[in-house]
């Protein structure tokens, strides 16, 4: 108990130095936590994807569409229980700064395939029966102050003109990872407009979403779908929703890797700072450690005091850093909700914070402990006075 008392008292012998070191660790852990949360948010779509859904798109590229006629063939394929479709609309609300994902979907089948988008039954009914109706996620509606019944104009970028929708519902996510920043309207509305204005762009689908009867059949169904449309004008590429989402991530993988590297660099830097603090501390107290050894304290008592102090400082900073990560991430996520629909601090991030604290405490204490343990008592005592 007295030894615990000693390293706690020792830790605050140079209050300013210790406080600055703790602040440094707090900032490093906070930065590390936020960067890791950015990475987690980057993969949020992947995490939220279902194993029982496949996505079929044009084999050449996402920007090429598939004919609506494929739908009938897809629904008859073994292992497929439901088929829905979606077109990336790319509409702009007032200004480009107000970016959010908006899709034309076939509502009934889509909502059936995505039970994580939870709508009140009355709102769902209203959406299904209104050709110009739309639904928005809870965060998106909050962001723009939309209420059910509001008219929402979107300026088309892919599909020209100003499109007016009536908000029929606001969905909430069943899970914390569900994206509540999306906007959906009826594919039929888009298609009918295309039939009138540019018929050659009508009856085209961006992606088909296939609901499987059994997730274990994903590979088999994918192969069957792609084989069916082999050598057609629009060959398909079918993959799991997870793989589909990962293909987006892959486009920006360099950024994710850079963020991951920076997050670890932050830890390495603070490790060097804490190691320097502990080295200075141990150098100043080498005479005291010699006294402890003289009194009969063994090497592990000495090492325990140094590592205890190192861990005390590191964990104090880590605890503060973790405590701050949550409110800062909340605020950060609110500011960047258009880029990161979900910005939650993952449990793994906290584990990584703790692991980083352990590594920092350990590495920072090794050299001073080794030095204090190995120095001859007579040499250590000579440093005093």
């Amino acid at each position, binding site marked *: 108990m*007295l*030894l615990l*008392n*000693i390293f706690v*008292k*020792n830790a605050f*012998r140079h209050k300013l130095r210790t406080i600055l070191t703790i602040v440094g660790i707090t900032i490093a852990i906070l930065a590390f936590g936020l960067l890791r949360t950015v990475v987690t948010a980057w993969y949020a779509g992947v995490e939220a994807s279902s194993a029982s859904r496949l996505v079929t798109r044009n084999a050449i590229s996402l920007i090429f569409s598939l004919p609506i006629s494929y739908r009938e063939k897809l629904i008859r394929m073994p292992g497929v229980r439901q088929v829905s479709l979606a077109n990336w609309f790319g509409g702009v609300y007032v200004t480009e700064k107000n970016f959010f994902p908006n899709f034309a979907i076939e509502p009934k089948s889509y909502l059936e395939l995505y039970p994580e988008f939870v709508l009140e039954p009355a709102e769902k009914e209203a959406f299904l029966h209104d050709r110009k109706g739309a639904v928005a996620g809870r965060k998106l509606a909050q962001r723009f102050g939309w209420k059910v019944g509001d008219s929402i104009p979107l300026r088309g970028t892919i599909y020209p003109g100003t499109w007016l929708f009536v908000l029929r519902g606001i969905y909430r996510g069943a899970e914390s990872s569900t994206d509540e920043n999306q906007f959906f309207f009826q594919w039929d509305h888009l298609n009918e407009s295309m039939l009138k204005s540019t018929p050659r762009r009508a009856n085209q689908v961006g992606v088909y979403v296939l609901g499987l009867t059994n997730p274990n059949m994903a590979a088999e169904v994918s192969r069957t779908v792609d084989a069916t449309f082999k050598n057609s004008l629009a060959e398909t590429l079918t993959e799991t929703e997870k793989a589909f989402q990962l293909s987006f991530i892959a486009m920006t993988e360099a950024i994710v890797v850079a963020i991951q590297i920076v997050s670890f660099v932050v830890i390495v830097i603070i490790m060097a700072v804490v190691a320097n603090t502990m080295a200075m501390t141990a150098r100043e107290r080498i*005479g*005291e450690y010699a*006294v*402890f*050894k*003289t*009194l*009969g*304290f*063994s*090497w592990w008592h000495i090492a325990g005091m140094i590592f205890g102090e190192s861990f005390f400082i590191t964990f104090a900073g880590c605890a503060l850093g973790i405590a701050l990560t949550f409110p800062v991430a909340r605020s950060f996520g609110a500011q960047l909700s258009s880029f990161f629909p979900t910005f939650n601090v993952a449990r793994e991030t906290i584990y990584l914070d703790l692991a980083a604290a352990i590594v920092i405490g350990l590495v920072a204490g090794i050299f001073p402990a080794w030095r204090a343990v190995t120095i*001859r*008592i*007579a040499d250590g*005592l000579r440093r*005093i*006075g």
Partner: protein
Amino acid sequence: MTTDTPETTASPIVRLRSVSKSYRRGGQIVPVLEEITFDIAQGEFLALMGPSGSGKSTLLNLIAGIDKVDSGAIFVGGVEITALSESELAIWRGLNVGFIFQFYNLIPVLTAFENVELPLLLTPLNRRERREHVEMALRVVGLADRMDHRPGQLSGGQQQRVAIARAVVTDPTLLVADEPTGDLDRRSAEEILHLLERLNRESGKSVIMVTHDPRAAEQARTVRHLEKGFLADAAS
């Protein structure tokens, strides 16, 4: 009483046999002690004197088990400490030797009570027993009313008395003091020497004291001189 003749009536607590020690300085080996052989009797108060660099502190360190001989053997209380491993030596020091340093070497973040309690943490005593021992040791040195003071709140003489309380709290057989009055004013120095003399006389502690100060040496019962690594009075 002061004498230059070693006490030989009691059985020796310390026996040195052909002890040699050298240090390496800048690639050169500098002999510090050469073939030292002598005994220190049980209950002795011995002052080791000599000029700087004569090897007296080194000799004290070797006897106290905080440094290793190059050759030779040292027996303390019948134990050949030169044959002990580092960890065995640490345990042995904790049980058998009390240390008093020139600069007191108290832990500044701990109170006088906690400083004195330190050696007892290595014993099986419980908290209440430790408290009793510490209070008694502080009473012996006359600092029972200062036990909650930190070293920085005490004078040099008081700090040295706390150091003496720390040295005796485990009831060791041997007290070693390296220039215990070297950093004190005359009055404080006399108090410390008197305290050491009283511990030797009343409690029967064997005391080995390194000092430059002839007045300090006068308190000892035996004085031995070291010159360039040899006992100057070895022949006597």
